């Protein structure tokens, strides 16, 4: 049923060139080998940046019979920030988990820089791909610095002690996440936003080529939301890290991401740069919100939501 709807929409859509695939389950440029970098800064680092690509994915949970997410192609272009957006239950977190090999897809393959992630050793994968999940708990007395050192887990052998590489990576991560002043503090004494930055320091200490973040800004105050997004942006611009990020706030996604993947009912609905994806039509079809979009706003498409559309 929904599949039919999607086809109908794609046919009538003037922008259908981005979704050349007939059933529309694609979240990647149709002709892409790698996407074209959007600006000079990314172009510089894109040379050694790494792309993450999923093909013919069917992803479900053991408890469900029907796949939760179906996706013919999904691409996180090398050296770019790609945001997954969509309403609750649209499958964006599920897709992200599968891309990080935390959830084995029922069908399909995920390739990191051309290699199957399923065939990589778990530590090897963790050295190249970092994931910050939505929920995490930490022992109350753990300090920010100790947490950051846990990010070095995949780089250390069973008997290896902390080396100079580890120290350097942790220092860099702490600096980049801007948590130097919190270094000695225990997690129990931090605010939600500070905690999130500490977790980001941990995942940065992992020093991966690809970083996946599952709703890192949800429940944070505006200041910390921006801090988190700035850290992600800096990491991407300066180190060429490929970023996949699930965001709840489509306005935020439009401001910070190079590409958006809009998910609806477990399928990618649209893919592309924010200015092309964020339309009034998308907001009503996917988010069921009546809104006006100012696409010419200098900071990216600006969304003014008016009201929820009745089901």
């Amino acid at each position, binding site marked *: 049923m929904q599949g039919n709807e999607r086809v109908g929409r794609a046919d009538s859509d003037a922008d259908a060139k981005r979704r050349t695939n007939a059933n529309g389950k694609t979240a990647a440029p149709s002709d892409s080998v790698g996407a074209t970098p959007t600006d000079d800064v990314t172009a510089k680092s894109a040379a050694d940046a790494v792309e993450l690509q999923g093909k013919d994915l069917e992803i479900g949970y*053991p408890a469900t019979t029907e796949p939760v997410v179906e996706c013919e192609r999904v691409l996180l272009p090398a050296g770019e920030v790609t945001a997954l957006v969509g309403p609750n239950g649209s499958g964006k977190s599920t897709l992200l988990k599968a891309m990080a090999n935390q959830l084995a897809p029922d069908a399909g393959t995920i390739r990191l820089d051309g290699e199957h992630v399923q065939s990589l050793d778990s*530590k090897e*994968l963790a050295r190249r791909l970092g994931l*910050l*999940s939505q929920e995490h708990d*930490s022992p109350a007395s753990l300090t920010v610095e100790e947490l950051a050192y*846990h990010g070095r887990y995949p780089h250390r052998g069973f008997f290896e002690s902390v080396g*100079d590489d580890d120290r350097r990576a942790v220092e860099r991560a702490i600096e980049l996440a801007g948590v130097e002043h919190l270094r000695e503090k*225990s997690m129990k004494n931090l605010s939600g936003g500070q905690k999130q930055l500490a977790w980001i320091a941990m995942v940065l200490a*992992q020093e991966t080529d690809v970083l996946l973040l599952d709703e890192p800004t949800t429940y944070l105050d505006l200041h910390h939301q921006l801090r988190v997004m700035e850290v992600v942006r800096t990491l991407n611009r300066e180190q060429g890290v490929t970023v996949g990020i699930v965001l709840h706030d489509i306005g935020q996604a439009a401001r910070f991401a190079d590409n958006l993947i809009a998910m609806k009912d477990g399928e990618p609905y649209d893919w592309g740069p924010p200015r092309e994806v964020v339309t009034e039509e998308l907001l009503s079809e996917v988010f069921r919100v009546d809104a006006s979009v100012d696409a010419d706003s200098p900071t990216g498409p600006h969304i003014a939501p008016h009201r929820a559309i009745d089901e």
Partner: protein
Amino acid sequence: MREETASRPESTAPRERLLDHVDGALATLCLGSVLVVVAGGLVQVSFGSYSMTPIQAWQAVFNPDVIFDLRAWEAFLLDADLPEMEQRSLIVWNIRLPRVFVAVAVGMNLAVSGAIFQAVTRNELASPFILGVSSGAGLLILLTLVVFSGLSAFLPLVASVGGAVAFLIVYAIAWKNGTSPVRLVLAGVIVGTVFQSLQTGLFFFADDIGVVQSAIAWTTGSLTGTDWEQVRMALPWTIVAMGLSLLGARQLNVLLLGEQTARSLGMSVEKVRFALSGVAVLAAAASIAVAGIVGFVGLIVPHMVRNIVGSEYRKLIVGCLFAGPALMVAADVGARLGLGLLVGASVQIPVGIVTGLVGGPYFLYLMRKQEALGEI
């Protein structure tokens, strides 16, 4: 040159911080525990049916003729023939001290085992016996004493095997596309309930009071009558288990970050969890083999230590290595001499009764004092 001096503070800084931690709470805890063990040991060697003054006992303990006699150690640790020695030294070294050493080993094993299980199940109420170990061991103890009395000589071994087998059954029940802490604990409860019932049922078939008393001593934990044979039995396993748990401390720390995070850091969570549980079962089994099922030590000690040094597992395990023996030795003093002091009877009670009597109120105190007792 300038570069060298500039980089030095950076490289020593973490080490200094590490020393800070070691210097602080943990060192105090370890020192305090050692003092308790020494004091408890001194009491244990001073009192008994052959009376001597504490000073005489002390002299016997530090008798250089024994301490520096290789043959004596061969006799103690390798079961060789005992060389001749003075009577006081003989009583202290051959009868009273081994019991203290067994208490030390049991305390270490139980405390570390509990600490590991609390991290593996992410449950602060986990004890060495949470995954069915005690009920499996208890059932086989009863079966051996009541039904297969011919196997009594192998009771320690049989008990440990029972614990390990019950643990494997629990794991098999909990397994469904992997395990989870909650499923492990629930499976432990299921197996524990069934085995406990069978165990209680077996009491009906015990025909004399001696068998029942022996069964109770084993299932509540007792150090009565332990000597060098028990030390020899427990020592190798204790060394292996304690070594492995120290090595596994970092894995435990990462497990505490939650399964998802551990997995995304590249840990094979199922393998690590099973391996660490195995180490904890080994430690528990070593203590069951020499002392039976001593309750509460494995639950209380990790709590106590966590309260003092925090939940960083390298510190926590080291703390448990010292605090466990302290509690166990102190409790055994109570078990051996307490009744004599209270009612003048020279009866010894199982040490498990004392640990329960001390542990319960201490746990209550913790619960009252701390709001967030559940935080691991």
